[in-house]
């Protein structure tokens, strides 16, 4: 099986879909000739031409607005927003239009736009290249919100997103583009080549939207997380020696509640982790749902390990990032309770 990092997997998903379906078009800032600032669309313009891989003006609202119109006219646009921090100028088009079109026209009109955008910190990007705004999108009905944690899922989920007739906001945790990351920035970088999820089929396959995955089986504690923190959680389980089950949510909305609650009912303890700021974040939804469905199984309060409720500071990103240490502390707290 070929080895791919996440960038290659994402590129491959584009390639597979552009090959299969001539209605798939890509647009975004610097995605064409240059192949994207993170190289996710590299080579696509050479292969599919300038009419299918389109360099766009720097106007996130315009990109999404135009993509919606293209989608209404039968295309399947994949729009890249260069950084998730820059998605807000397109927020109105996403919330008021993309998410609502099918509903308000009773299915007569819809636009199957996929919006890809790199998110998260850990690359010294400061507060405007590090945000994880998924929690703002999960509250918006009518869109699906996805974040893969590895190359295999990235490709399979992206293909599923492009094929989906629903709009999808697809977050790519840029810290793990090149390799999994256990939360310790002082360790040497690891590549995807030796990771089982770095094995990625060349061709077409999908990972269905709306399905969480047990990334690590365990009995004592459930860690519900996604994106970069999946790897931190697995590392923390090893570090603490706690027999933790790590669930990779993968699709934040719609949420695969059962996989989560099955696990928590089994373990009786739950830690939720994400990189986004804690207050009002997506982890709150996870906690609210799990406490309701698993109340009688819970032996300890559900805790959250998350980004602090501040912007992402450039110099202190490792004090901000919910890394190994904080994950371990979170595990311990949940385990100690009772």
């Amino acid at each position: 099986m070929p080895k791919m990092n996440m960038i290659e997997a994402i590129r491959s998903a584009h390639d597979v879909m552009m090959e299969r379906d001539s209605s798939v078009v890509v647009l975004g800032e610097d995605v064409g000739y240059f192949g994207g600032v993170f190289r996710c669309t590299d080579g696509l313009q050479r292969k599919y031409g300038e009419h299918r891989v389109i360099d766009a003006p720097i106007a996130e609202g315009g990109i999404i607005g135009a993509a919606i119109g293209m989608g209404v006219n039968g295309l399947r646009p994949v729009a890249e927003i260069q950084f998730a921090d820059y998605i807000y100028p397109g927020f109105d088009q996403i919330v008021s239009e993309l998410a609502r079109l099918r509903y308000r026209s009773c299915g007569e009109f819809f636009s199957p736009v996929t919006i890809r955008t790199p998110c998260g910190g850990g690359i010294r990007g400061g507060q405007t290249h590090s945000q994880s705004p998924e929690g703002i999108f999960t509250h918006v009905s009518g869109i699906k919100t996805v974040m893969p944690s590895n190359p295999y899922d990235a490709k399979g989920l992206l293909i599923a997103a492009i094929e989906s007739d629903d709009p999808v906001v697809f977050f790519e945790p840029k810290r793990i583009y090149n390799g999994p990351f256990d939360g310790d920035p002082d360790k040497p970088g690891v590549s995807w080549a030796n990771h089982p999820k770095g094995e990625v089929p060349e061709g077409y396959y999908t990972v269905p939207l709306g399905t969480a995955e047990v990334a690590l089986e365990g009995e004592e504690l459930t860690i519900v997380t996604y994106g970069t923190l999946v790897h931190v959680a697995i590392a923390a389980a090893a570090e603490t020696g706690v027999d933790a089950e790590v669930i990779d949510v993968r699709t934040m909305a719609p949420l695969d509640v059962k996989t989560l609650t099955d696990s928590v009912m089994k373990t009786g303890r739950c830690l939720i982790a994400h990189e986004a700021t804690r207050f009002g974040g997506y982890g709150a939804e996870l906690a609210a749902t799990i406490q309701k469905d698993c109340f009688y199984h819970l032996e300890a309060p559900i805790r959250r390990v998350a980004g602090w409720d501040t912007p992402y500071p450039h110099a202190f990103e490792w004090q901000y990032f919910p890394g190994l240490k904080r994950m371990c502390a979170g595990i311990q707290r949940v385990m100690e309770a009772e």
Partner: protein
Amino acid sequence: MIEKSRLKIPQPYARPGDEPDFSYLELSPAGEIDKPQIGARTRDLEYLANGLVRVLDDDHEAQGPWNPDLDPEKLQVALRWMLLNRAFDDRMWQIQRQGRISFYMQARGEEAISIAQGMALRSGDMCFPSYRNQGLYMYRGMTLVDMMCQCLSNTRDMCQGRQLPIMYHSKEGNVFSISGNLATQYPHAVGWAMASALKGEDHIAASWLGDGSTAEADFYHALTFAAVYQAPVILNVVNNQWAISTFQGTAGGERRPFAARGLGLGIPGLRVDGNDFLAIYAATLWAADHARRGHGPTLIEHVTYRGGAHSTSDDPSKYRPKDEWDAFPLGDPVERLKGHLIKIGAWSEKKHEKLWDECVEEVTAAWKEAQQYGTMTEGPFLDPVTMFEDVYAEMPKNLESQRRRLLEILGEE
């Protein structure tokens, strides 16, 4: 600290109690503006944004190079649609006033725009309208009954009760779904047009918004994308002088006409008498041709007047002179087309009255029928649990269980 303010605050030319004053409107006599060749250099088209393309003169004669030379029969058809639009609006307004629908918005005074452009475009062209383009839906085949059922949110409502009255959509007629959010449809039209060009088709797109809405980001995004990719699209600004209570100067219309808004991007602008059916028709044909032949977008500003209230929620006498419309130098589009037809001997006051009565009757009959599909107070009613459909292509679990929950709750009643 504000006593010494040097800020310029734009002032409308007349407020309640003032004499209406339209001296600010720069007009050109009918027939005066040259009609350029398709494919002329954009720079050579700039004059079109400053003048005012008019065909019908004050004596109801058609003048000059923009005269589209339409058959009288076609003009009679147009007049009928405009009257039907007005009769429909009158009736729906009244119906809202009786509390039988929750909300309404008229196109009074602006009917020529939807009808002329509906007629000048081809059926394969896609329209992205604003909330005053009901005439477009009508002309493109939506029945009055269907429109009324939408306004009633009844069992035949195309929106299944999900949308405010007037927020129609018609896939069949190639008229997009109306949004409550201003200007958002503008970049959709451009994206649609880009897709049409990408597919090598020669359908074009058209969109409409108001003078006030030009201030929104989406207006600019649409202009930019249309200019960059030379999208085959007609971008219409319906300048009816008012945006709820603020005059067009609050949207930046005081120093240059809205038609000029795209010049800085190289988009030609046509400033057109929006109450002159013939001028609108001709301008639209020109812009459509321009787009279809690969020369890209055109911005058309329609100079018109919002003859009625903004919506059923406001009282315009609170913010503008009551008789302002009477003083509007471009008159009433219905009267002007009628006058022209009479002038060329193809119409009479009597025929006009009869046609109006017919339209009113058609509306009355439609209203009778529409009510059979349910009203706000009387059944049949739509099933509320349909509200969970179409949020997604397939209903996800959280909505399924909420749907069940609502059924339970409704069952308890």
